[in-house]
Structures are given as C-alpha cells and as structure tokens.
C-alpha cells in the first residue's frame, strides 16, 4: 500500500517507515528554528561566501580522480534491513547499490547496458529472458557468480518467507528462473512484462552470493554479500553503515566513468535524522555529503564557498493530487477540472520550494522515459473558466463563508493525509492549494490523521483527494495508480478503484509490449487521458538534493535519481 509506505523507490533518501514518529513534526519545527542559528553561525565561520558552486559540479571534472579517503554521507533514515530483497526503503537502495551489482544497468536516457550480464535476449512472445553472464565475477565472500546465483537471488526475492516489501513485487509475473549452464540465466514469465529489465537494474534485485543466501539466511538483513565495488564492513545500529572498497572489482557497468576498483577507500553512511544536524556537520567538515537538503538550504549552500548542491529530478509518478472520479463531489469531471484550474501552481511550487522544484504538468516526471509533452499546459490556471464549470455543475449558491453551495450543501472536498506523508514541505504546499481552492469557492479540508485511520480512509476509497508520489524510472508506474487491476486489495495504489477500459487498454499495452514505439504511443495516450479527465492534479516533480563539500567529485545519479558512489572521489583538503 502506498498509504503507509508511499515510496519504496521514492524521491529522496528518506524511506517511508522512519517518517512515522509522532514526535517528529514538532522536533522538526524546532529544528528549523535552531537551524537558523546554526546556519548563521556556520556561515560566519565559513568566511565569505564567494562564487556560487554549480549544480552537479561534482560530477563534472575537477582534475584527475584521486584514490583513497573516506566519504561520509549523512542519511536521514536508517535502512530497516540491508537485504535488498526485503527492504523497500530508498536508503537501502542507496547503500546496497554499492554492495550489489545488477544484471543490467539502466541509464537516465532509458537505455540498458551490460553489467553482470554481457548480453541478453528476449523471446518473441516476451515470456523468456535469457542472460549471458560474465564469468570473471567474484562475490565478496569469494563465491563465483554463475547462473545459479541469479536463480537463487530471484527465488529469494519472491519467496513468501522472505517477506519482501518491494523486490518481490518488482518481479510481477515471475514464473521461475533456470540455469541451463553456469553462464546462462533464464527468467520465465507468466505474461510479457516490459518493465522487467528496469526491475532487474534496481539495487533491490542486485545479485546476492548464493553461499550467503544459503548459509546466512537468518542474518541477511545485517550481512549483505554481493559483488559490488564496496563490501560490507559493519552496521552500528542507529549510527552508521560502513563499507570498504572491493580491491578486486573489475566488472564496472558499461557507461561508468572508470573501470577497476572504486576510488574511495571507505564509504560511511551515518544515520542523522535531523536536517539541521546534517547541515551543521556538513558545514563544519564532519561529513562530506548531507542527504535530503531542505529546499531552503539549497540556495544557502549554492551561495557558500566550499560547498555544492548535487541534485537530480526523479522520474516516475510525480507528487500529485489523485482525485476521486468514482464517488463524491469530484465524480463530476467539471468539478475536478474547476479545482485544477483554480490553482496557481507555478507560483505556489516556486515559493514553497524556493525555486528548487519544477511544477509537474502530467502524472509522470519529465525525466521518465515515455513522458509525453502533450500534457504540458493542459491544466493551466483559469479562474474564470473554473467558475463557469462550477456554475454548470450546479454549484451556484454561496454561503456565509464564501464557499459555493448546491441545494444548500457546501462544496467540500476532503483530503486526508498523515504526518509521515508531510515531508518535503508538502504541508505548506497543501495550505497553498487550500487557499487557492477557497478563492474558487471550494472548501478543501486537509485532514491530518493517524496512520491507521488514514490507511483505512485511503483504502476505503471514501476520500476525495489523496496526495502521493512514487519514484520509478518506468512509465509502468501509471498502471499502479490507474489500472483497474491495481486496487488496494491486490497490492496496488488505485485506491479509488478506477475502472476505465480505455485507460486499462493503454496501460496493459504499455506493460506488455516490447516495442518502444508501441509503448510510447500507449503511454502518451494514458498520460493525456489522465490530465484531460483530471484524474490527477500533478503538483511538483520530486528531486534528490544532496548538500556536499566541494571536495566531492564524481557522484552521479542513476536512473531513479539515487546517488552513485562508484566513480566518486575526494579532492585533497
């Protein structure tokens, strides 16, 4: 359910689970106050703020890479489990990407590159994938990579005993894996699944040592063994995860900036829940990268000498308001359209996010393969048009508070939410949306509920509006929110139980066709349909934003906008 963990592969290094503590919003507000002090002090301590540093400067040049050193990354959230097959958390993906290699690598343009598999074929019916594996790959425990390892990894992910919260679901339609010979792994599907390669490219399906899977079964969460450029050293609960360079690494994916072992000697992920503490650590040189830089901090960091901001827009389902087209006042498309047209989203997103996020135009982020530009401008601000639509829909009366009424009933739209969803300034954004809606005479009730009540409301399909996002570099994510087979009871997020044969047709075609042209056309129509019929009001495109010392170079982002450390290096102080 997205209700509780909206973003297994979500927009930042901040998985859902740790966002559910009741105390946190309060702490957070205080932290912001304290941060003002922290930043003032730190800025003064850092001396003059000179030339700004460019975004992604770390990725581009900075001289010849230097080997050695320890990169300390302060993550907001602790991984729940380091077995990638189990955990749905972003932070697990970010950490495990260094420990596990995948069969294939997906670049942000949507192209797949060889990694542990040197080549692969798909059968004409789309049901059988054959991977030809490298034969020179060793896991950190000395085991050799072979087809049996691939088979064991995938079977581990789908085994109900693993209780996978994400990876298992990625393997939708998995019928089995075979190892006809050590260098050939075959995956069989029950139905064609165009998104399979993308699923296999994620760290969540990184290939694990079969020896570790067999011997270590009870302890996989705390002892990840893969073949990646870094090997696992230790996990100090609540404090840090330490990885060290794998000196024998010689199987970098195609498209990496270098080959051979990683530049960094050590990679330490500290768990620092408080944003103000992460920023303070960064500015005082106690860490090199601070995860989840708040929008307000980004401009500060950019303007401070010695620091940079590394950021990347995330692909997948943007943060948007899903409107209930099945029941309630929003079942009337005119009311949905009126709501969308009464929002001044350009200005709102700009001010709430200090110019660090883009307004979303369609359900998919522009970085997603098969994003279709035809959605742009469809849901523009038009208060007059909105008023006309509401009149047509019969909401012609006005009550004492200025809200529209019909038959004496106020036009009220209910948007339940829960504290853990309020990250990334989403509360502020909601207030802006509420204010704009009020101008149009629509009462938008933004109701904060405890997670249990919220889950019940959301799954019950009784809400008018729900706000979610889901980062995944695959347009198939649309099916998850709008496909009629993706209702809550089937593990999907189509919480309003939308059942639209036309939409289903495109989404199923996109999910099953292996022809990119066919998929592109299908997804273009689906995206257009979603905005034309206002099944969703897209709000903004999530961003991964890291505050970093300018000593950091070579940190890139993968297709899901997760930071990558294989090519990373640290310049001398």
């Amino acid at each position: 359910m997205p209700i509780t963990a909206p973003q297994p592969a979500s927009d930042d290094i901040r998985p859902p689970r740790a966002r559910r503590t009741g105390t946190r919003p309060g702490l957070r507000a205080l932290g912001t106050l304290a941060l003002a002090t922290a930043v003032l002090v730190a800025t003064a301590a850092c001396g003059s703020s000179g030339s700004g540093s460019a975004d992604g400067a770390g990725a581009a040049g900075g001289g010849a890479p230097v080997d050695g050193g320890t990169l300390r990354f302060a993550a907001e959230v602790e991984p729940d489990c380091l077995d990638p097959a189990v955990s749905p958390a972003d932070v697990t993906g970010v950490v495990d990407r260094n420990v596990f290699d995948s069969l294939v690598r997906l670049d942000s343009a949507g192209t797949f590159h060889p990694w542990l598999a040197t080549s692969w074929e798909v059968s004409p019916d789309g049901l059988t994938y054959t991977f030809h594996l490298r034969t020179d790959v060793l896991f950190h425990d000395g085991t050799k990579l072979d087809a049996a390892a691939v088979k064991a990894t995938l079977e581990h992910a789908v085994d109900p005993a693993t209780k996978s919260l994400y990876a298992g679901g990625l393997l939708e339609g998995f019928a089995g894996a075979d190892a006809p010979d050590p260098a050939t792994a075959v995956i069989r599907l029950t139905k064609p699944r165009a998104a399979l390669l993308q699923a296999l490219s994620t760290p969540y399906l990184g290939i694990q040592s079969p020896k570790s899977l067999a011997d270590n079964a009870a302890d996989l969460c705390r002892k990840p063994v893969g073949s990646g450029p870094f090997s696992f050293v230790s996990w100090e609960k609540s404090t840090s995860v330490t990885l060290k360079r794998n000196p024998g690494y010689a199987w970098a994916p195609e498209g990496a900036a270098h080959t051979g072992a990683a530049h960094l000697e050590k990679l330490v992920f500290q768990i620092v829940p408080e944003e103000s503490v992460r920023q303070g650590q960064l500015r005082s040189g106690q860490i090199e990268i601070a995860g989840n830089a708040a929008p307000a901090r980004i401009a500060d960091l950019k303007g401070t000498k010695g620091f940079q901001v590394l950021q990347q827009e995330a692909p997948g389902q943007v943060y948007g308001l899903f409107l209930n087209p099945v029941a309630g006042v929003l079942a009337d498309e005119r009311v949905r359209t009126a709501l969308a047209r009464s929002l001044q989203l350009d200005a709102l997103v700009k001010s709430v996010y200090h110019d660090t996020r883009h307004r979303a135009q369609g359900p998919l982020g522009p970085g997603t393969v098969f994003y279709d530009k035809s959605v742009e401008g469809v849901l523009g601000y038009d208060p007059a048009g909105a008023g006309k639509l509401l009149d047509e829909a019969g909401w012609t009366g006005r009550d004492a508070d200025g809200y529209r009424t019909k038959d004496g009933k106020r036009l009220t739209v209910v948007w339940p939410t829960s504290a853990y969803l309020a990250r990334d300034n989403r509360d502020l954004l909601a207030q802006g949306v509420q204010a704009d809606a009020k101008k149009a005479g629509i009462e938008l009730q933004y109701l904060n509920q405890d997670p249990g009540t919220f889950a019940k409301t959301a799954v019950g399909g009784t809400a008018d509006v729900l706000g979610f996002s889901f980062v995944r570099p695959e347009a198939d994510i649309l099916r998850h929110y709008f496909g009629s087979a993706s209702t809550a009871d089937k593990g999907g997020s189509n919480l309003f139980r939308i059942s639209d044969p036309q939409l289903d047709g495109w989404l199923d075609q996109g999910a099953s066709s292996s022809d990119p042209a066919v998929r592109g056309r299908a997804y273009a129509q689906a995206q257009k349909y979603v905005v034309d019929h206002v099944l969703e009001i897209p709000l903004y495109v999530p961003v991964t934003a890291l505050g970093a010392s300018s000593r950091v170079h070579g940190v890139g982002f993968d297709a899901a906008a997760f930071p990558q450390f294989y090519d990373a290096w640290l310049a001398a102080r």
Partner: protein
Amino acid sequence: MKGLPPPAGGLALLRHWVVRRLALAVVVVLGAASAAFAGLWLAPGDPVQLIVGSHEVTPEVAARVRDDLGLDEPLVVQYGRFLGRLLSGDLGHSYQASRPVADVLGDQAAATVELALAGFLLALLGAVLLAVATAGRRPWLRRASSAVELVLGSTPAFWAGIVLLTLFSFRWQLFPAVDGGGLDGLVLPAVTLALPMLGVFAQVLRESMERSLEEPYALSARARGSGETALRLRHSLRHTLVPLLTLSGWTVGSLLSGAVVVETVFSRQGIGRITASAISARDLPVVTGVVVVSAVVFTVVNLLVDVGYAIADPRLKESLR
C-alpha cells in the same frame, strides 16, 4: 492478609511488605504490557497494512505477515498468547530487525544506560554545586540561580541539543556531532540530557538544604565554629539528598523519555532510538518489549526506593502496614 495480626518484629514486617509490593509490581508490569497491547493492536487500521507498508507487496506476503503475527486469531486468543509468552520471559520477535526483541533491546541497552548514568551524574553534580552555592545566600543570587534553573528545567532537550551542537560541535568543533565511539562523543548528549534534570534537582535541593540549615544540628555545628560551606558539605548535604529519592520515579521517566530525543538528535544508539523507529515502523513486538522493560525498571526502582526509605527512616515503619 487483611484481618491477620501484623507479624511481630521489624524484619518480618518488612518481608511481608516486600512480598506484597512485589505482587503489586507484577500487576503493574502486566497492566503496562496489556495497555501497550491494547494501544497497538487495537489502534485504527489493519496492522499488516501498517507493517507491510510498501505497496508492491503481494497478497501472499501480506498473508504471511498476518500469519506470523497471529492476527488471524480472535483478539482474546492473541492477548492470551501475548501474556503467555511474556510470562515465560519471551518478548517476541522484532518484525523490523527479524530478531528476538530481547536481543534487539539487549544490544541497545548498554548505550542508553551509559547515556542515562552520565546524564544523571552530571545533573546531580551540577545541582549539588548550585544548591551549596546558593541555598540561603543573598536573595539576588538565589533568584538568579532559580531563574536559570527554571529555564533549564523547561527547555526542551531537542532545542538544547541543537544549540549545544551548533556551538560546541559546528562552530568550535570541540566535540563530534555524531558519536564516533570515544568518550568525547558522550559529552554533548549527556549534557543535553542532564540540563533539564539539573534545573529540577537544583530547585529541590536548595529548598531542602535551606530547611536543613535551620535544623538544630546545623546550629550546633555553627556553634562549634564550623564554616558555612563545610557545614553544607559535611552535615547538610546528606539530609538534603533524601528528597531526591522521592524524585527517582520522575528521574527514571525523564531519563528514558529524554533518551528518545537525545539519541535522535545526536544519532546515538540506544533504547530511545529503537523505540522511536519501532513506533514509526509499527514494530509491535519491539514497542511492547520497550514498554514492558520500562515498566519493570520503573517498578524495581520504586520498590528499591521504598525499601530504602523504610530502612533509612524508622518513622515510615508505620506506613508499611
């Protein structure tokens, strides 16, 4: 026991009383555990949904979780099972860490005990110094100290922690923001935990010291020519510390709850951190485990304090019945 004549002899009386208190303690612990059970199992929403979280989970996995937690059973059966396990000392299995809860808490206990002890000792030391320095002295000094204590006592640990970090770690870089394992990493967290407690302790101690300075023994010490500070340290302090015993329940409570905040701000290991993450992840067995362990600690401390009182102060013997 009602109706029976009280056993003769002080020791027998004490034993009788301790047994009764122990029985009560068991009831208290069971009550706390039941409240935790009720609070978490009966909270709105399907626990499986909350635990599983991720939306790509297959119905088979959800069924597995439900089965693991025994959620298919009627509530009464679940509750009975829960109590049965608890009575046999089994705190259950952490869903999040996939380990026994006892192990999870055991691993983290040392860090919290270290922090709590350091914080407590700092608070005690600071409060004693303040009390000795200000009790019965010039009114302005007393007022100033009292004002500072009030501020300390009402400053949220979170705020204090961030300010300390900002100054001592980020600005002057004297201490690390995140514990690297050394003793220097303990300083700021312990101070943060100690400050609010110091404020309260100092108020209590000063009151109590002022009262004790008016006792006859103080007068006789003065008459013997004892200096004021020596009098405070050698004679008055021992009496003064007794009211702190009364506060011990509150102290344990603030140490435990303070640990949640301090461990989060300073990214430390510990029971507090585990509690916070278990609540957020709805790791029900861990949450109940923490509740049970805290209830046990509370009860034991209170029991010891009461016994200590009874032994220390003969006047309280009467109340033992």
